């Protein structure tokens, strides 16, 4: 099957009469990791919200497995895609297990509160994110990186094929950013999840993605493999950033070295 798992056609999104994303086309292959990059306010997060129906399209439509996303009941949508918003909020006092168990909500009914399948999925999600030891700890007592892993663990317990992450590395230090992205890679490679995420760090995006989508002012400027998209020309065009792009030695991915005023002058 070559049908994209998620596709947008002529998609325009916005709020309060304003249009943020304009007539955008996008197709995501099953089993890939796609990262959307772009300057602040370019519509990355808006696009992600539109792809998971948190925002209704002004024009165009989103197809999930070939079917218009507007036609899915909320519960069925949650069975097919797990979404982690940028700054999710949980009620205070919630423990990690309680949070992760919420991921099973679309599969639960009032008389099916915690089935054998739920128990196994929660245990597997805790295991995959390496927070089994923290399962009885309250969410507010975790470090930023641990908390982010707990949230991802919840999305994982949903057992959906698609995983949408809006800036999963915000507020994390570099080590924790890498930790989260390594987890994303493992989910993709070992569990076959299709991942779409928004990231700010272009080098990390290049390193952990199969495909980069570069956006500016609500339209896609370029998309493709990291080595095709992450170039000095594109960085200038999209971010207005003078930069050198080198090949990092471990995986041969493009790596961005921003140039300041002086280095721009000396390199010319």
């Amino acid at each position, binding site marked *: 099957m070559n049908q994209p798992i998620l596709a947008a056609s002529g998609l325009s999104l916005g709020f309060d009469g304003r249009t943020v994303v304009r007539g955008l086309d996008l197709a995501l292959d099953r089993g890939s990791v796609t990262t959307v990059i772009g300057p602040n306010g370019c519509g990355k997060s808006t696009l992600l*919200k539109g792809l*998971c129906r*948190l925002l*209704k399209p002004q024009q165009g439509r989103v197809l999930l497995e070939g079917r218009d996303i507007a036609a899915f*009941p*909320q*519960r069925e*949508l*949650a*069975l097919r895609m*797990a*979404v*982690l*918003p940028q*700054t*999710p*909020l*949980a*009620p*205070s*006092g*919630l*423990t990690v*297990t*309680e949070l992760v*168990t*919420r*991921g099973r*909500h*679309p599969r*639960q009914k*009032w*008389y*099916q*509160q*915690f*089935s*054998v399948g*739920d*128990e196994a999925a929660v245990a597997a999600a805790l295991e995959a994110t390496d927070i089994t030891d923290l399962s*009885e700890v309250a969410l507010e007592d975790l470090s930023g990186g641990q908390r982010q892993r707990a949230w991802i663990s919840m999305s994982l317990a*949903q057992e959906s094929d698609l995983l949408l992450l809006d800036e999963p590395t915000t507020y994390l230090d570099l080590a924790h950013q890498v930790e989260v992205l390594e987890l994303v890679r493992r989910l993709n490679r070992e569990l076959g999840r299709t991942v779409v995420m928004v990231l700010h760090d272009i080098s990390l995006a290049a390193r952990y993605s199969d495909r980069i989508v570069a956006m500016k002012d609500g339209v896609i400027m370029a998309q493709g493999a990291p080595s095709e998209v992450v170039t000095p020309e594109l960085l200038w065009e999209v971010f207005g950033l003078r930069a050198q792009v080198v090949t990092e030695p471990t995986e041969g991915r493009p790596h961005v070295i921003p140039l300041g005023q002086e280095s721009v002058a000396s390199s010319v």
Partner: protein
Amino acid sequence: MRGWVLRIGQASFVLRPRALLVGGCAVLVLLLAVLAHLMFAGRPLAFGEVLTGLSGGPGAPSRLILQVQDFRLPRTVAGAVAGACLAVSGALTQNVARNPLATPEILGVTAGASLGAVAVLVLAGGGAGGLSGAAAAVGLPLAAGLGALLFGGGVFLLAVKRGSDVLDSNRMVLVGLGATAVATSMVTWLLTLGDVTNAGQALTWMSGSLNGKDWDTVSPVTVVALPLLLISAFVARWLLLGSFDDNTARSLGLPLRWTRPLLLLLAVLLAAVGTVLAGPVAFVALVCPLAARQVTGTVVAPLGVTALLGACFVVVADLVAGFVLPQALPVGVLTTVLGAPVLIALVLRSQRRTS
């Protein structure tokens, strides 16, 4: 999991030991409170007399049967049902408003009910002597119910913004406060119209009182209340997800555009029922969900425990206010006097824990 999992075939339930323990204790306390209420709400009766009066078997004196079944039991039932309804309504309101200090009072229900009741008391009360007979037994609760539904329904309709995906909690609170202000000022105006007896009767009603409840009022309202409480049990599983942010709740498959208005509707109806039965008994809706959360140690108030605490609170408060204190008071006065310090203690305790 902080709990035991019970699985029967395809069905599975999470049982929390602490909530079960608290619930069991609350059932016991409620039974004792009901018994005490039946024994001491009036001329003290012995335990055996209450049982004889309740069972109404052959040989039971008809005066005793009348006293227990027709005079005391409706008042006890009214207190228990009103307490349960108000408490559950409070829990639902706090969840929908995303504010632990929100109460059905901000939904306009209470003020609307007061307006209806006061209108009947003042306008139909006639001259001296106040309202009595059929007007008091049927007209008053009917008017209170209509007022509650009119104002609660109005707030509900205005809070649900057309074209918007999700019910906005802030919008709901603002609309509710506006409606409450309108109803309250109309009540004040009505009070200045009537004569002193009627105004006094109205003020007693507005402080929340179980005086003179009979089956004519209590049975129809209870018949409405029980299904509402039952429905609450089924929607209880929305409450935890509803206290996440909206995007996360929807991502987890909760259709907020249906669930939140439904919860609000349920809260309005339960508050209306509770207020019709007992008047606006203050602090029950505010304190009981908070207390239920604290004693069970759960993130959202378990509705069963909340309902039981509400029932206990009102029945005990009515017994103390009406029959233990040297000067009989309406139950609402006592719940306010007791509820305020309890609320302060609960807030202080929860702050100490989080700091």
